[in-house]
């Protein structure tokens, strides 16, 4: 290990805790389990400071570890409390308003201005996070499993005890919700301010 490796300061690590907890909650939707996973993450980082190469920011590094801790928790079969199905109605309504009876889009989506530049802006990720928090709980959870934890459909199905076609529909709804939220809160504001 190079001697120049920056040490990890415990207070700095501790300052990340609230943000990590919010992120874990997005996926786990269970306060106690989220706290456990975040605690495990912080301990893992402190126990193996040498693994932090110092090339990424500490925050990026710790979040990557959190991600694997969440996957571990899911694979260990730590059941998350069952979520109610009250979201179904809202999801179906969302799809209804998007299309005419003949299946055509009612309002064509406006192309997003320079998405590549957007993805380089920290503020965009703040908006993305807020939009994720606004998703119906069940929808957010499956979406995070697929897009953030990058699990394949079959693993998601096993974990949630749902069929593949069910998973695909839920992911579709999640993307519709998220697209609409980003459109309204990020891209819409951009074009409005121009």
């Amino acid at each position, binding site marked *: 290990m190079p001697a120049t490796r920056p040490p990890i300061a415990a207070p700095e690590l501790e300052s*990340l805790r609230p*943000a*990590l907890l*919010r*992120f874990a909650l997005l996926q786990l939707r269970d306060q106690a389990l989220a706290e456990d996973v975040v605690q495990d993450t912080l301990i893992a980082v402190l126990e193996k400071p040498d693994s932090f190469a110092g090339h990424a*920011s*500490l*925050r*990026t590094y*710790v*979040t990557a570890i959190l991600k694997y801790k969440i996957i571990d928790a899911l694979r260990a079969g730590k059941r998350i409390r069952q979520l109610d199905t009250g979201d179904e109605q809202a999801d179906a309504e969302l*799809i209804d308003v*998007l*299309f005419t009876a*003949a*299946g*055509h*889009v009612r309002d*064509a*989506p*406006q*192309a*997003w201005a320079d*998405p590549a530049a*957007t*993805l380089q802006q*920290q503020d*965009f*990720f*703040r908006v*993305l*996070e807020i939009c994720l928090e606004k998703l119906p709980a069940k929808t957010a959870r499956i979406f995070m499993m*697929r*897009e*953030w934890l*990058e699990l394949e*459909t079959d693993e998601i199905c096993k974990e949630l005890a749902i069929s*593949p076609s069910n*998973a*695909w529909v839920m*992911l*579709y709804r999640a*993307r*519709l919700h*998220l*697209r609409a939220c*980003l*459109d309204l809160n990020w891209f819409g504001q951009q074009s409005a301010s121009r």
Partner: protein
Amino acid sequence: MGIPTCKEVHRLASEQLDRPLSLTEKLRMRAHLLACDACRTFNAQLAVMRKAMRGLPAINDTEKKADEL
């Protein structure tokens, strides 16, 4: 099976991110996209969202800017 509707193509645009589409589905989608701006835009936006999620750079806080390059 007639010409696929926007509703069907929106759904296929999402499902292609989760499973391989069949050849028929691919062809139907491609034919529709050639003629439909709205679905092309939607399809592109899904790609942006995937890229954003996969590149989600840690958690964003107000102090984020200060400690990132």
